[in-house]
């Protein structure tokens, strides 16, 4: 881009367009794979725009959206809500795919990182586990629809269901971890964004410090997380948070005041190398367990749908037949309806109440209606079992078996906390559930048959009482009628099996069956011989409980293995500001190679950049700080140095930094506004790119004394930023945060204070037309 005479200038960053917006945007993120921009507006609507600013969809999650991020493959968008829920949405239509509510505190930040190291075909290959389920089973069943609920658009929900199912098929995904930071200092990790695998609270991290020449432990109080970033090899997590660092009260001796308090912006480095070391095992466990989770949902919904349908049918039946007992008492008799029916069946006599009931109050049509309701409900229930409950129970049992296989491989899976005994128990429960489903099916079909036999008989009686011909009717079995009156007329075995409120109901089992169940133990049957006495609903609850217990072990084991490795005070603050421009990222350093378990890769260097806000500028002034190499501190400790690299950039006078973002290849994108502070919004703004790796970084040593601010060492070597000499472009509006930059696509979106969105292509330059015309 050489200019001939110096008149023609080149303006960096091609402006794609400048469009008005309906409302202010609070957060914006580019899709890592496609040119799509997701934005959250002030009224918590989430919009997805194409690169040409065509809107794809808008959703309003109902609650306040407090953070968002994309899945690394760009196919799902994660939203963190104020109530602590993390929801995942389909990129195609914004449909809700999954909702996870594992911690009830507002989600401040999300970071979803994928393992960058491709699996080589070397020795690591034998652990690449194949999910065998699709080879043996048809596609997993879906959640049955509640009867009576008509979905708005049938075709649309079908699509949603498909993407839902596709989502749960994680076998073709690369291993990835979603990390969410909550306001109360909790960090939650979940594999594929759906399987929670670990949790740590930064308040519980203890930091060694020297206070008044004595070594002590310090803890962070009242902190709130600002931003988190997982390294691309998943072995480090950088957390920045506001808070007060105080001496741990358990470490305080008598009579000593814990008055040493360091308030400000802090940075933690957590060691999450367990994710990298055990990624194959975690991948396999997460894949099986998250699928079981989905199927549990299917089974639970099936049981509640069946319970609802059957109770509706039974209440219709009882409603009709209850009038009989009233009639009996009206006639001054003290017999039960069953006795009356029996005497009718055995031909002793037809008492007036039963005559009146059959001919007048019930009637042929009424009887037929009840019969239809009951038989339809029976059919529906059978369909739910066949299409939903049974396949779900089968796949659950199969997947549990796979998990049990893993749990027995102690050498490999005990490290991630998969416990053999717990998994054995869960697998056994899953098998019992399968038997229970089978038994339920039998009970159901026999009950349905009994009902239809009873109604056939009643119909015949009604015809006879009304002296109508009855030879055309189906024949009935009078023995079965007796059985019906005795066991089914005022009891409901189907409901007993289904109803969770009656879960403690005890089912009588005959001795012979008990004996056989006990005999089966020797052939490898279920160790708990009493399982047939439980109801289906109870068995399901027990299965859920033991499964949760079994997957709870990896969760707590992994949580314990995430430890705080390094701590650094980024900037001391007297008051906690509501917003600090900050960006965390990891870059590969091509000059330094490191070897991994499966080959070589570039060393990952972490970068932290943030602005020191105005009110604590007493020491340094308005500066942008860029820190790097916190992860590699250990490597240098061995060499006798405990230091990191940092550089301070002072923002030119008359400007302040609105937002900044680390961009690809160690570049940093800055957004500067003209004016004194955020309240002053007039004049122009600047978008500029700095090559961070070329800045004069200087080493500073990390102090172990409390109240030391390491960055203060650099006070005298502040680099003054000059807009003219950098790659910068004027924006003719005052701008506001956020600045959305996509490293993979090379685009940036800037939002102006006057509700405008400007999209720039960062890799391309633009010929300045105005200078041409000059």
């Amino acid at each position, binding site marked *: 881009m050489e200019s001939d005479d110096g008149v023609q200038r080149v303006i960096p960053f091609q402006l794609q367009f400048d469009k008005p917006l309906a409302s202010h945007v609070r957060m914006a993120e580019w899709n890592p794979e496609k040119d799509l921009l997701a934005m959250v507006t002030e009224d918590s609507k989430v919009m997805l725009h194409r690169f040409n600013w065509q809107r794809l969809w808008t959703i309003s999650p109902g609650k306040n959206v407090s953070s968002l991020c994309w899945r690394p493959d760009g196919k799902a968008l994660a939203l963190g809500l104020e109530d602590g829920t993390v929801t995942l949405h389909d990129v195609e239509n914004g449909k809700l795919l999954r909702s996870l509510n594992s911690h009830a505190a507002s989600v401040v930040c999300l970071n979803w990182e994928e393992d960058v190291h491709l699996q080589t075909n070397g*020795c690591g290959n034998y652990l690449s586990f194949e999910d065998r389920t699709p080879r043996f089973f048809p596609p997993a069943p879906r959640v049955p629809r509640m009867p009576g609920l008509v979905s708005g658009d049938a075709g649309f929900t079908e699509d949603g269901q498909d993407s839902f199912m596709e989502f749960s098929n994680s076998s073709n995904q690369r291993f990835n971890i979603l990390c969410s930071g909550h306001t109360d200092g909790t960090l939650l990790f979940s594999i594929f964004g759906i399987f929670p695998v670990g949790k740590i609270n930064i308040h519980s991290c203890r930091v060694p410090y020297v206070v008044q020449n004595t070594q002590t432990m310090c803890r962070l109080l009242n902190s709130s997380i600002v931003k988190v970033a997982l390294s691309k090899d998943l072995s480090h997590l950088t957390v920045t948070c506001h808070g007060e660092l105080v001496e741990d009260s358990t470490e305080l001796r008598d009579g000593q005041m814990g008055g040493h308090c360091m308030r400000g912006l802090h940075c933690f480095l957590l060691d999450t190398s367990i994710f990298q070391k055990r990624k194959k095992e975690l991948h396999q466990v997460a894949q099986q367990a998250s699928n079981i989770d989905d199927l549990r949902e299917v089974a639970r919904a099936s049981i509640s749908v069946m319970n609802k349908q059957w109770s509706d049918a039974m209440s219709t039946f009882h409603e009709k037949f209850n009038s009989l007992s009233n009639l009996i008492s009206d006639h001054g008799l003290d017999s039960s309806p069953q006795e009356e029916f029996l005497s009718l069946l055995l031909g002793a006599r037809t008492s007036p109440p039963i005559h009146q009931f059959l001919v007048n109050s019930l009637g042929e049509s009424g009887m037929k209606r009840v019969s239809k309701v009951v038989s339809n409900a029976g059919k529906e229930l059978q369909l739910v079992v066949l299409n939903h409950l049974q396949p779900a129970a089968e796949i659950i049992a199969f997947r549990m078996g*796979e998990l049990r*296989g893993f749990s027995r491989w102690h050498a490999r899976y005990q490290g991630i906390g998969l416990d053999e005994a717990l998994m054995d128990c869960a697998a056994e429960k899953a098998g019992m559930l399968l038997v229970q489903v089978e038994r339920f099916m039998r009970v159901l079909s026999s009950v349905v048959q009994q009902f239809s036999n009873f109604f056939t008989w009643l119909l015949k009686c009604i015809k006879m009482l009304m002296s109508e011909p009855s030879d055309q009717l189906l024949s009935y079995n009078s023995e079965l009628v007796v059985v019906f009156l005795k066991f089914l007329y005022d009891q409901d075995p189907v409901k007993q099996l289904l109803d969770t409120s009656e879960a403690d109901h005890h089912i009588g089992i005959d001795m012979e069956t008990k004996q056989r169940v006990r005999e089966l133990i020797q*052939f490898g049957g279920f160790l708990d011989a009493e399982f047939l006495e439980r109801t289906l609903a109870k068995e399901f609850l027990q299965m859920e409980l033991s499964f949760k217990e079994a997957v709870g072990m990896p969760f707590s084991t992994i949580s314990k293995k995430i430890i705080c490795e390094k701590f650094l005070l980024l900037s001391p603050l007297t008051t906690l500001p509501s917003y600090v421009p900050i960006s965390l990222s990891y870059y590969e350093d091509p000059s330094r190679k490191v070897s991994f378990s499966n080959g070589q890769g570039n060393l990952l260097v972490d970068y932290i950049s943030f602005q020191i806000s105005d009110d604590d500028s007493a020491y340094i002034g308005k500066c942008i700080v860029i820190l790097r190499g916190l992860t590699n501190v250990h490597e240098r400790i061995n060499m006798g140095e405990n230091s990191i690299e940092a550089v301070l950039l002072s923002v030119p006078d008359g400007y302040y930094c609105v937002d900044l973002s680390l961009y690809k290849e160690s570049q940093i994108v800055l957004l500067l506004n003209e004016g004194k502070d955020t309240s002053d919004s007039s004049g122009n703004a600047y978008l500029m790119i700095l090559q961070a790796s070329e800045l004069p970084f200087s080493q500073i040593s990390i102090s172990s004394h409390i109240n030391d601010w390491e960055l203060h060492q650099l006070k005298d070597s502040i680099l003054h930023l000059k807009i003219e000499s950098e790659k910068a472009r004027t924006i003719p509006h005052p701008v506001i945060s956020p600045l959305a930059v996509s490293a993979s696509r090379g685009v940036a979106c800037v939002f102006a204070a006057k509700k405008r969105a400007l999209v720039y292509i960062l890799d391309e330059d633009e010929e300045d037309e105005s200078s041409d015309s000059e």
Partner: protein
Amino acid sequence: MSVSKSQMLMLKLQLLHEHSLHRGQLKVAQCLCDELGFLASPVSGVDMDLKIEASLRHARTLLAAKQFSKAAAVAQSLFCMCYKFNLHVQNANVLLLLAEIHKKSGNAVLGLPYALACLSFCQSFNLDLLKASATLTLAELWLSLGASHAKRALTLTHSALPMILGHGGLELRARAYITEAKCYLSDPCFSVSENPDVVLDPLGQASEDLQLIEYHELAAEAFYLMSIIYDKLGKSNEREEAAASFRTHITALEDPQDETNEQYN
């Protein structure tokens, strides 16, 4: 009920046969095997499952008695029968048995093609557990070809482990553990003193499982390996303990006590 009774009987006979093979009571095993054969109808082409099961067990009894050529002959004729009646699953089983026979008779090279043929059968018929056990046999065959194949054998064993541990019986699991340990031990790059748990863990598991099923031969092997490892580590107490267990299993194997056999008849 009657159907399940006869099935129960069949299962019982199979378990008893297995048990007597493990304990080294070969005469009892042969009787049980014959009894199983009598359950089947004499008509040709009927009760094929039972007949094949019976002669498969016959071959295994011969194998346990170290009559390799006889066992191979039975297995060959069984293979022909399975082929005639198009019984692919049983065919894969017979192929695996042939591989085992060659392995035990010391002709590992001859066993390899049978194991591989079994593997390809299993792959096309989705017989995952059989495939895993064929993989294990393959690993054992490679291992018996020399220490230079230990790495390959270990990879094969590891690929079969999740399947075997999840769905295999105690015997298969124990065999897999022992093979894993043997792979490590015969690998020249592996050092016991550095990480003894890598070998002691699987051997401990295996010996536990084998004691449950009273499989003396393999249990003796597991304890033998354990005592050698303990000896190398200098833990003499543990070594003595393992050696004592080794001796009990070896004597039990060489002197099968037949009186306990009464309880079954």
